[in-house]
């Protein structure tokens, strides 16, 4: 993954390398603790990529994607226990079903929540989150606060984690592929237009409501599928853990850390932060210190690298390698080729939002 102005071929080689590392990792590092952490990392990489494809691309911060995680978890758990499945690989066949359930649920939620503007959207997703957590706690068929226990996977103890790792890796690859496609498609362009200035996008004929809803639903599906794998992996789900309040903020931090709205950012952020957090918790002897370290790390990143780690590094490196001042970063306004009058090239007025409008 070359960071600087990668050409098509280096990009491809980088991507290939990344996939090889992803596939080979549990074969090389086969310590179960490492593969457990790796499995969670891959899960969060997929979740962060999916979350970012909606919230990072449109600027609508969802704090309710835990709903889809929980829905996926409950779908797999309830169906597999309902059918008395005895573990093993067949249970993974329910993962796509969980994705569909999450996606289907995202339609009405998105339809309602996306009618509001950004600030309100954040809060309405929180409200929706609580509604679903409370439903899971109180409805009969979810088994309430008692939770649902699944049949154990039944895989050999020595590489028990591998099926879950590879299932998550498949979702990760599919999600990254999907988001990569979205990013360079007309659809992606519309999402970015909404993020930068929704009213202008609307006036340019973007079907804003539909585009946002489709993006919301697409981002829910991988989250639901990972939720299902998680439930099977952990073996038992309770409402307060399947629908976890801190889920979305954690994911948002990952996306921001790597670089919101970029493709590699969330993957990188999830990898670093998930591993870092598990490492800090395992290694710090003074309790709660990790909270402080974690928080200060973020404040420092926000102050020093406000665009996130990857975009900032990219900028620094490109500045150093291309000292002429030609700007290769994707966020900067169009570079000027002086002398020639250009009426079309420079049409990007700086966005300044008069907030009362």
């Amino acid at each position, binding site marked *: 993954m070359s960071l600087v102005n990668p050409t098509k071929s280096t990009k491809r080689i980088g991507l290939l390398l990344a996939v090889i590392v992803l596939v080979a990792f549990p074969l090389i590092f086969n310590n179960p603790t490492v593969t457990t952490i790796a499995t969670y990392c891959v899960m969060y990489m997929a979740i962060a990529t999916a979350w970012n494809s909606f919230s990072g691309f449109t600027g609508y911060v969802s704090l309710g994607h835990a709903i889809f995680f929980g829905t996926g978890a409950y779908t797999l758990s309830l169906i597999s226990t309902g059918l008395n499945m005895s573990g093993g690989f067949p249970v993974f066949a329910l993962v796509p079903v969980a994705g569909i359930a999450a996606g289907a649920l995202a339609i009405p939620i998105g339809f309602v929540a996306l009618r509001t503007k950004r600030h309100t959207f954040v809060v309405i997703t929180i409200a929706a989150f609580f509604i679903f957590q409370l439903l899971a706690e109180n409805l009969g068929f979810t088994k309430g*606060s008692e939770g649902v226990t699944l049949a154990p996977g039944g895989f050999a*103890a020595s590489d028990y984690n591998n099926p879950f790792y590879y299932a998550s890796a498949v979702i990760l690859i599919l999600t990254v592929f999907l988001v990569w496609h979205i990013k360079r498609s007309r659809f992606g362009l519309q999402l970015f237009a909404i993020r930068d200035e929704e009213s202008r996008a609307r006036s340019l004929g973007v079907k804003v409501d539909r585009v946002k809803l489709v993006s919301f639903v697409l981002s829910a599906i991988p989250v639901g599928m990972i939720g299902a794998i998680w439930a099977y992996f952990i073996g038992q789900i309770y409402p307060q853990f399947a629908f976890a309040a801190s889920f979305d903020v954690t994911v948002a931090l990952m996306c921001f850390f790597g670089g919101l709205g970029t493709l590699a950012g969330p993957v990188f952020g999830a990898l670093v932060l998930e591993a*870092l957090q598990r490492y800090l918790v395992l290694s710090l002897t003074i309790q709660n210190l990790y909270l402080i370290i974690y928080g200060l790390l973020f404040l420092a990143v926000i102050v020093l690298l406000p665009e996130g780690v990857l975009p900032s590094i990219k900028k620094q490196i490109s500045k150093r390698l291309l000292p002429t001042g030609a700007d290769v970063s994707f966020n900067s306004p169009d570079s000027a080729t002086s002398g020639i009058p250009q009426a079309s090239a420079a049409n990007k007025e700086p966005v300044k939002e008069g907030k009362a409008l």
Partner: protein
Amino acid sequence: MKSLFKRSKQRRIGFVIVPAAALLLAACGSGSSNASSSSATSTTASAKPIQIGASLSLTGDFAANGKSFQRGYAIWAEQVNKNGGLLGHKVSMKILDDASSPTQVATNYQDLITSDHVPLIVGPFSSLLTVPAATVAARYGYAMVEGAGGAPGVFTHGLKNVFDVSYPVKDGLLPVANWIKSMPAGKRPTTAAYVTSNNIFAQPQIAPAQAIMQAAGVKTVYNQVFQSETTDFTPLADAIAATHAQVAIISTTSVSKVIAFVKDFITQHYNPEILVGTNGVNQTAFTSAIGTCNANGIIQPNGWYAGYDNTLSHQFVKAYLAKYGGTTSQITASSAEAYGVGEVLADAVNATKSFNQAKILKYLHSGVTFQTLQGPVKFNSKGENVDGVVLGFQWQSKGTKYVQILPASDKQSVAPLFPKPAFCS
């Protein structure tokens, strides 16, 4: 000027590299410890020390109890070492923090078993974390003796490696119910109000007690389940007060909620003849919040308290005070539960003369009775403690003394304050 600028940029990038390095360290650190494997079956006296692994909630929602557990385990390890260790090995506790998360608790036990190769593990805090923890342990054939996973849900999953040294949660209110049942008809209260939080520890206690009391003619006048998200308990407490129920039972997992109810009962001048809280009543947080004098007469069921007359218990209390100082009233039942876990595990190891998990599992399932500071422990096939005794405690002497009152037949029990004296303020 320019070089200064550059240097500062480098620092920024260095800052970013730190977490990435931490990740690598995490991977390498766990990987390299593969090398140190402990052959644990040796019984020679000069054997090398062993680690006993546990994951506890030292942060997050269950942190307060998790820390009590940590103390209990620590004192147990100290006592074991004082008596020459386990099969001649000095023991030390390796405790990881799971931040009250089931995901982390599973990772932690996996790490303890596969990276640290601990020969023995003991359980986490909270029924919510016990199943994920035991599932991982079962995968590697480890027995998990635990002291805080007594909710019915823990035993219905066919796990063959869970052993709870405490009494089963669903039995919690039985002594109170049986006491009420045993009262002469004229004296016996006739109405009861039940309120419980929607929680696997709190909720299962209500129904068995309610059944006994209803059979004894105690009418249920209020019975509600509330959400842990509830912000304002006053309307619930007021509604209970308005029923003038003679028995009020509040089942919660957190001291904050029982405080909220009792505070409101005080302001409403509602004085039930029997007032029971299933959790937190013995804590200083409770008495200091409602006022010591107001605690007078309030009852809590529990498996243990510092005044418990049992040789093992005395040893524990002495060791606790020596290590952590303070007064006996500051020793929580959670610490004792953890200590009890250690006692059972040590007995099993000593009886089988090995750290072999299969042998230990077989022994724990054999139906023998263990003696612990909480009294006798005997496991049924599910791992529940069928000998588990639930005691009833009550604040007496204007809230200055916390004494055992139930079961009435027990020689240690003193006469209960009945009806409960009116609140002081």
